[in-house]
């Protein structure tokens, strides 16, 4: 595996080199002891669309500024060290590619956001196959367009929210592709603010201090097949329209204020095929409109879904619920959402006509979850015998739980997902 990927890199590098030569561009080698022994010198003498090959070694270059379209490739993973003082690479030109480096020890700032690689108002920038270790911000895109951030490993060791930046931070961008990155130990794994028409695909974001993915005012994006686990507060998606969330895994976000997925003011979005495993709250929804939540699996969460009465036209269909302490929690009696055709492991009804749909409705909301919504202090009666008795009676004669919050067509068997 390792050999073949190296081989591919090798071929890729040579293909790039050949291609650049075809375009009448030149290749500059950077190595210790040669004429251009620093990357900055090589950049200064290079022409647009040249290639710079950097051989292995540790480079202490303070701040490298790339101001023309260049391809910069690290061979045998050279190390760029920021000495805990500097921003390591600043990209201020279009069509820049950076790959194969290890960037470590960036500076730290309280006023300015120092990053390992920062992109300033540029287009068509590709940052791939880098290892970014112990930096304040990892990769920072400021007004970037059509950029690709791919297969980077971004690790940091933050302990407090204030003292660490985000892994991949994107602000005011368009058409980004964030693919196959692994992010650990930052404040937010991936941060999106005012980013549109972008895709986040196959990333793994875990053990970050705050959110695995933090998503605000970012319309028309999709995040697909990512894994967000063991983050301080899970994933948060806020004030966004038309966002697609497919086949992600949200797991082990466990704690007093942790949510698998926190949704606030979301409309016209899709939540399909995701897995929510062992979160305190699988999904927390507030002000969500016109959003189908379908074919998801909720396994062993505290609350599978907390849906506030401010949500409208949320259609929860064809989901599987297994082993959650509470299936649904809500704070009011107004129900403008649909809960039909789900599989609930707590359903105790029967199916006489054998159409695989239960003949009596299922009420996924327990009396106790209504009680604690009105009076959170009652939580000290959690798992007492009286509470389970109350829940049983409420199942038979509903009085305190919202009349309309029910699944009229509960499935008898779990859906194959």
């Amino acid at each position, binding site marked *: 595996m390792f050999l073949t990927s190296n081989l591919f890199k090798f071929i890729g590098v040579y293909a790039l080199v050949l291609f650049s030569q075809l375009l009448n561009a030149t290749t500059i080698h950077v190595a210790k002891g040669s004429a251009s022994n620093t990357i900055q010198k090589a950049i200064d003498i290079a022409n647009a669309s040249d290639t710079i090959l950097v051989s292995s070694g540790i480079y202490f270059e303070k701040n490298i500024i790339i101001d023309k379209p260049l391809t910069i490739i690290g061979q045998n993973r050279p190390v760029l060290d920021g000495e805990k003082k500097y921003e390591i690479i600043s990209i201020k030109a279009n069509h820049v590619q950076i790959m194969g480096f290890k960037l470590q020890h960036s500076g730290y700032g309280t006023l300015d956001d120092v990053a390992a690689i920062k992109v300033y108002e540029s287009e068509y920038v590709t940052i791939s196959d880098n290892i970014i270790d112990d930096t304040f911000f990892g990769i920072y895109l400021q007004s970037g367009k059509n950029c690709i951030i791919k297969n980077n490993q971004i690790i940091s060791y933050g302990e407090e929210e204030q003292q660490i930046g985000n892994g991949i931070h994107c602000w005011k961008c368009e058409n980004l592709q964030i693919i196959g990155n692994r992010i650990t130990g930052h404040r937010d794994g991936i941060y999106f603010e005012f980013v549109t028409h972008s895709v986040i695909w196959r990333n793994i974001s875990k053990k970050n201090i705050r959110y695995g993915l933090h998503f605000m005012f970012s319309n028309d994006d999709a995040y697909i097949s990512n894994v967000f686990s063991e983050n301080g507060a899970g994933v948060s998606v806020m004030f966004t329209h038309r966002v697609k969330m497919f086949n992600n895994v949200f797991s082990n976000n*466990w*704690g*007093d204020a*942790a949510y698998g997925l926190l949704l606030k003011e979301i409309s016209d979005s899709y939540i399909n095929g995701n897995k929510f495993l062992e979160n*305190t709250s699988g999904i927390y929804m507030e002000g969500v409109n016109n959003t189908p939540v379908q074919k998801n699996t909720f396994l*062993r969460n*505290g*609350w599978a879904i907390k849906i506030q009465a401010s949500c409208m036209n949320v259609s929860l269909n064809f989901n599987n619920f297994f082993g959650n*302490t509470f299936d649904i929690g809500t704070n009011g009696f107004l129900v403008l959402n649909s809960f039909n055709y789900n599989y609930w492991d707590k359903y105790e009804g029967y199916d006489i006509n054998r159409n695989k749909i239960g003949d009596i409705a299922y009420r996924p909301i327990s009396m106790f979850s209504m*009680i*604690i919504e*009105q*009076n*959170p*202090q*009652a*939580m*000290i*009666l*959690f*798992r*007492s*015998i*009286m*509470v*389970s*008795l109350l829940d049983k009676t409420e199942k038979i004669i509903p009085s305190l739980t919202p009349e309309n919050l029910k699944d009229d067509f509960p499935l008898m068997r779990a859906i194959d997902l």
Partner: protein
Amino acid sequence: MRKVVKYVILDILRSKIIIGYTILLFLISFSVFSLEDNTAKGLLSLLNLELFIVPLVSIIFSTIYIYNSSEFIELLVSQPLKRKSIWLSLFSGLSTSLVVSFLIGSGLPILYFEPSPTGIIMILIGCMLSVIFVAIALLASVLTRDKAKGMGMAIFLWLYFAIIFDGLVLFLLFQFADYPLEKPMMALSALNPIDLSRIIILLRLDVSALMGYTGAIFKDFFGTTTGFISALLALGLWIAIPLYFSLRIFRKKDL
């Protein structure tokens, strides 16, 4: 005194009920752990059983035993023995046999499947609950001579601690919903050994995160060593106080 304790234990063993109780506990504990793939979940299911069955069996078995051995007690009183040591022997005989059967029935499976501090605390609390309800049963049975009345009182006391008390707590919570009740709740929970045991165990399991702000305040107290020790002391008082009062009554009682 030692002879009397020995006799009481042998007598209890002969009745076979205690053996049945041990086997029942063992079967339940073993099957709960085998059914759940996650042992923490098993512990949680076992907690419900422990809080339900252990007090019930302890209180009813002890009450019946005291009433059934009233002739034996009369015989002992006619001997040159102190009433205090007779009563304490009955108490220690009953609690030893119930604790031993709990240790074998539930303790062994817990130690086998979940030998963590939480598991050990759970065993400790099961033993405490057994002894507490023996003490309460002694008090109930010494208060009245009539067997039916005594049994009724024992069952009512169990019902009160297991269910009614929580209902009252819920009622209070809704009546005083506008006030911060976390601290009074903590004091209130000490008034019921079953609630106190449930909270001590729940706070040690990861479901405690579901308990929100209230849980966090409880955790701040019970999570510390002082908090834990004072909770155990409160449970200890639940043994000492009923036992003391029952002893006071028994010493002056006209048998």
